[in-house]
C-alpha cells in the first residue's frame, strides 16, 4: 500500500527550510549518517507575515509547482501536518507528494494562538480549506482565459487544468509562475462536494514518520547550530524557594564552564560541552543554599482541604427544579470521586535554543503557541515583539502545557548573557518531572435521583479543582523563570478557566441538572493536561451512570441509550456493541465496562468498552483490551484518527491505573519514572478503534475524546469483575476488596 521511502534528502531539505536552519546558513550533516549531498546551501529569505485574509498567508504555489501550506498550529505528534496538507490537496485537486507545509513560526505563519483543545482541524483546517478553495477559483479563472474555455468546462487532476471542450490542458504552475495569489479569502469560493473527495477520509501516511525511522534531524533536541553552547538550569528544590548562596567562583572554574548565571533565584550554568554543563549543575546542586517554605497541605490531607478551603462556588449549570426533583425521586444516590495531580510526562524532557544577535532574538521551541510565547518572552526581557522570532520545531509529545514554554524562556534569558552564541537548554528528567505544570487534582461529588421507571430525573454535581490553564499567554509571571528572576513578575491567574468544568454537565436527558464549581488554589503548579477537567469529570459522571444503572437493575448500555436523544451519540454506542459485543455470557474472573461522552458536549463522540481479567490469587487485575468507536464528523485522515484515539485510550489507561504525582513538604518527590511509573509494554492493553465517518458534517478534532470515557470504562469493568466500586484514581489493585470475591 505504501511505497518504501528512500528520498530522505528531500524531507530533510524541507525540514531545514521550515525550521529556520537556513537562516543561519549552516549545514548539519551528521558525521555518520547515511550519505546524501548537502543541498541546503540556498538562502532562505523570510518574508513578513501577511494579512490573515490573504490567500498567500495560508498557501503558496511555488515555481516548482509545489504547494506550500502555512499553519500557525504546531505538529505535536498528532499528525496535524498531514491532515492539513490533505485538506489543501483535496480542495485544489493536487497530489499529496506536491504539498509541503510550514508550521508555527512567527516569521512565516499566522498567529493561531495555541495548538490545543483538539481545535486545529476546526480552526486552521477551515482557514486553509477556504484559502485553497479561493486559490482554485482564481486559478480556474486564469486557466479559462489562457485556454479560451469557460470555467464551467474546466476540470483539475494532479494540478493540471483541462478543458472538456477542447481537451487542452495547462498546469497550475504555468498559470502563476511562483508569484503570489494576491487575492483575499472571500469565503464565497465554492468548497468541493464531499461526495467527490479523493483524499479526505482516507488513510494518509505521515511522511515525518519516515524521517523519525531514519534518524534524520527532526526534533529540537537534534538541532546542532553554529556556535552552540550548552546550558543547564539549577531549579530551586521546591516551589518559591529563594537562593541564599552559591559559590559562583568555584563553579566558574570547573572544566568547560563558560558562565554561571544567577539572576535572583534563576540559576544556570553555560558550558562549551553538554556533559560539562551536566557535571557543573550537579556540583551546583550540592553547593547551593536555599531558603524554603514547606509545601502544604500534605498529600494525605489534600482532598479534604480542597473541599474545605475552596472558593464560594460558581454555578456552571442551574436548575430551579433540582431540589424538588430530588425530593420526589424514588431512589437517590450520592458518591464522591477523587483524582490526584498527574503529569504530562513527555518522554523527551523540554529543550530550547536561543540566539541573541544584532539586537534580534531567535528562539527555537517546541511550544504549543509560538505567538503567545513570543509575547511572553517580550514581557520577560522587555524586548519588542518584532525583535523576536519564535520558530516551532517538534519535540517529544507534550499532551498539553508542559515545560516547553518555560525552557524557551530559560534559553532566551541565557542567550542575552551570551550574545552571538546559540544557547541550547536541555532540561534534565527531574526538571521536567518536578517543574512541569501538572493536571490538577480534582474532587467530584455527584448526587442523583431516579423515578420508579429507572429514569434519572435529578443530577447535582459539585466540582473542586485548581485551574486547568496557566499558559503564559503574554504574562512572564506564568513562566518559572519569570517568578525566579531578581525582579519577579507577579503570577496573575486571570480567573479560573472553563477547563475545570469541561464535560461536567451530563449530555443525558435529565429533568433537572445542576453543576457547581469550587475553585481551589492547591499546593502544586497546574495547567492544561490533555482534555483538562473533562478527564475527571467524565470519570465521575460515567462511573455514576453505571452506579445508577446497577441501582435501577438495568444494563449499563441500555440505561445510557434510554437517556440519550442525539442520534450520533446512539450510533457510536450501537456500533461499539456490534463490533465488540457486550456481556455475552459470563466468563469467570473477567469484567466488561462501558462509557461514553461527547467531548466538550459539542465535539467528537466516543464510546469505549474495557475488558479486565482479575487474578484473585495474586490479587491483581489486568486490562486486557480497550475497544473504541469515534465519530469526529468529517474524517480527514482516518489513519490519524485511529492512531490518536488508540493512543488516547492507552494514555488514559495509564493515568487511570497507575498515576499520581507524589509530594512532601520539601517538594515534588515524583522525580523519575521510578517513582512516577507509567504503563509499560507488558501491561498495555490491546486496542481496537472504529471510525464513523460523516463526510457531510463539520470535521472535529480527535485528540482528546478518549481520555475521560476510558477511565470510567476501566472502573466500570473492575466493578463488574469484582463488585468493588473504585472511585479514587489511580485504580490500583489494592483498592479492590478481594474478600468479596469467591475464588
Amino acid at each position, binding site marked *: 500500500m505504501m511505497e518504501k521511502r528512500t528520498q530522505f534528502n528531500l524531507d530533510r531539505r524541507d525540514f531545514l527550510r521550515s525550521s529556520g536552519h537556513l537562516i543561519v546558513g549552516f549545514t548539519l550533516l551528521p558525521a555518520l549518517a547515511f550519505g546524501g549531498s548537502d543541498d541546503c546551501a540556498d538562502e532562505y529569505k523570510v518574508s513578513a507575515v501577511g494579512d490573515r485574509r490573504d490567500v498567500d498567508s495560508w498557501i503558496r504555489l511555488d515555481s516548482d509547482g509545489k504547494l506550500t501550506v502555512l499553519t500557525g498550529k504546531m505538529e505535536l505528534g498528532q499528525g496535524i501536518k498531514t491532515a492539513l496538507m490533505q485538506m489543501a490537496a483535496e480542495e485544489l485537486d493536487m497530489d499529496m507528494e506536491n504539498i509541503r507545509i510550514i508550521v508555527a513560526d512567527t516569521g512565516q505563519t499566522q498567529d493561531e494562538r495555541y495548538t490545543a483543545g483538539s481545535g486545529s482541524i476546526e480552526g486552521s483546517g477551515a482557514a486553509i480549506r477556504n484559502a485553497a478553495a479561493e486559490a482554485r477559483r482564481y486559478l480556474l479563472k486564469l486557466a479559462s482565459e489562457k485556454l479560451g474555455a469557460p470555467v464551467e468546462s474546466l476540470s483539475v487532476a494532479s494540478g493540471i487544468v483541462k478543458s472538456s471542450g477542447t481537451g487542452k490542458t495547462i498546469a497550475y504552475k504555468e498559470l502563476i509562475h511562483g508569484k503570489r495569489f494576491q487575492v483575499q479569502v472571500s469565503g464565497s469560493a465554492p468548497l468541493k462536494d464531499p461526495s467527490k473527495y479523493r483524499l479526505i477520509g482516507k488513510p494518509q501516511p505521515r511522511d515525518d514518520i519516515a524521517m523519525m525511522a531514519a534518524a534524520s534531524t527532526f526534533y529540537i533536541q537534534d538541532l546542532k547550530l553554529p556556535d552552540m553552547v550548552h546550558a543547564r538550569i539549577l531549579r530551586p528544590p521546591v516551589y518559591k524557594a529563594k537562593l541564599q548562596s552559591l559559590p559562583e567562583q568555584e563553579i566558574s572554574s570547573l572544566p568547560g564552564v563558560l558562565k554561571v548565571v544567577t539572576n535572583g533565584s534563576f540559576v544556570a550554568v553555560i558550558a562549551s560541552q553538554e556533559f560539562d554543563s551536566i557535571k557543573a549543575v550537579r556540583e551546583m546542586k550540592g553547593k547551593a543554599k536555599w531558603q524554603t517554605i514547606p509545601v502544604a497541605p500534605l498529600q494525605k490531607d489534600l482532598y479534604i482541604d480542597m473541599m474545605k478551603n475552596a472558593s464560594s462556588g460558581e454555578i456552571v449549570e442551574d436548575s430551579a427544579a433540582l431540589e424538588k426533583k430530588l425530593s420526589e425521586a424514588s431512589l437517590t444516590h450520592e458518591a464522591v470521586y477523587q483524582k490526584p495531580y498527574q503529569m504530562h510526562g513527555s518522554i523527551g524532557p523540554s529543550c530550547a535554543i536561543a540566539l541573541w544577535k544584532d539586537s534580534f532574538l531567535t528562539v527555537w521551541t517546541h511550544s504549543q503557541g509560538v505567538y503567545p510565547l513570543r509575547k511572553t518572552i517580550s514581557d520577560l526581557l522587555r524586548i519588542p515583539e518584532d525583535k523576536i522570532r519564535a520558530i516551532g520545531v517538534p519535540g517529544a*509529545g507534550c499532551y498539553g502545557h508542559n515545560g516547553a514554554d518555560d525552557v524557551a524562556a530559560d534559553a532566551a534569558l541565557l542567550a542575552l548573557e551570551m550574545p552571538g552564541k546559540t544557547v541550547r537548554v536541555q532540561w534534565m528528567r527531574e526538571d521536567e518531572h518536578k517543574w512541569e505544570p501538572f493536571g490538577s487534582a480534582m474532587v467530584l461529588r455527584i448526587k442523583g435521583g431516579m423515578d420508579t421507571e429507572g429514569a434519572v430525573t435529578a443530577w447535582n454535581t459539585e466540582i473542586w479543582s485548581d485551574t486547568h490553564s496557566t499558559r503564559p499567554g503574554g504574562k512572564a509571571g506564568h513562566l518559572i523563570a519569570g517568578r525566579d528572576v531578581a525582579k519577579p513578575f507577579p503570577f496573575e491567574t486571570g480567573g479560573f478557566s472553563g477547563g475545570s468544568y469541561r464535560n461536567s454537565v451530563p449530555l443525558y436527558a435529565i429533568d433537572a441538572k445542576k453543576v457547581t464549581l469550587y475553585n481551589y488554589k492547591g499546593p502544586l503548579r497546574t495547567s492544561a493536561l490533555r482534555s483538562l477537567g473533562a478527564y475527571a469529570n467524565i470519570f465521575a459522571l460515567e462511573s455514576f451512570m453505571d452506579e445508577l444503572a446497577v441501582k435501577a437493575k438495568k444494563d449499563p448500555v441500555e440505561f445510557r441509550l434510554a437517556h440519550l436523544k442525539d442520534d450520533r451519540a446512539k450510533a457510536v454506542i450501537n456500533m461499539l456493541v456490534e463490533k465488540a459485543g457486550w456481556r455475552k455470557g459470563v466468563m469467570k474472573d473477567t469484567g466488561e465496562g462501558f462509557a461514553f461522552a461527547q467531548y466538550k458536549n459539542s465535539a467528537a463522540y466516543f464510546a469505549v468498552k474495557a475488558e479486565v481479567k482479575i487474578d484473585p490469587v495474586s490479587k491483581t487485575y489486568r486490562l486486557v483490551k480497550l475497544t473504541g468507536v469515534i465519530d469526529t464528523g468529517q474524517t480527514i485522515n482516518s489513519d490519524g484518527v485511529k492512531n490518536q484515539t488508540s493512543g488516547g*485510550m492507552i494514555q488514559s489507561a495509564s493515568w487511570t491505573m497507575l498515576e499520581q504525582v507524589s509530594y512532601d513538604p520539601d517538594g515534588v518527590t515524583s522525580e523519575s519514572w521510578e517513582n512516577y511509573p507509567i504503563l509499560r509494554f507488558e501491561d498495555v492493553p490491546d486496542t481496537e478503534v472504529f471510525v464513523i465517518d460523516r463526510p457531510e458534517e463539520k470535521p472535529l478534532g480527535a485528540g482528546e475524546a478518549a481520555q475521560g470515557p476510558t477511565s470510567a470504562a476501566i472502573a466500570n469493568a473492575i466493578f463488574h469483575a469484582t463488585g468493588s466500586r473504585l472511585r479514587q484514581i489511580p485504580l490500583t489493585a489494592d483498592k479492590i476488596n478481594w474478600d468479596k470475591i469467591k475464588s
Partner: protein
Amino acid sequence: MAELIDIKVNGKTLRVEADSDMPLLYLLRNNLGLNGPKYGCGIERCGSCMVLLNGKAQPSCVIPGSAAAAYEVTTLEGLIQNDSLDPIQNAFIEEQAAQCGYCMNGMIMSAKSLLEENINPTNQEIRQALQRVLCRCGTHTRIIAAVKKAAAKMKK
C-alpha cells in the same frame, strides 16, 4: 579528563576526544553527530537512548563512552545499509507506528536485538523485549504490529 577513545560505531572505528566518564549517549550525539539515540531520563529507565552493544539492545545514557569502546556500537543510523532502511525501520513506517516518535529509536533498536535472536516472536515475547522502552503517546498496539510485520518480512 579528556582522553582519546577509539570506538567502533556503525562499522567504522573512530578516534574521539572525550571525558572518560562521559556517557556513550553524549559521545554519539555530540561528538559524532548522530540523532538516533535520544536523551530521556539519564538513568536507564526509559529506553530512549537504546543502542546495540555487540548486537544487544542496551541504554547508552549511563555507560561511559570509554567503556563502550570494548563493544561494537550500532545506532539507528547504522541499520541503514547502502541507503536502504532495515526491514524493521520500513515496517514502522508502513504501520505508521509513531505519534511523536521520540521513543521510536528505543523500539526499533530493541526489536532489532530481539529479531536477531528470535525470528518468530510471540506477542508476549515482543512485549517483553520492548518492556524497557517507554512510549507516552500510547502507540504500543502499532509498534507490536510493526515488529511482527518486520519479523514476517525477514523470514522471507
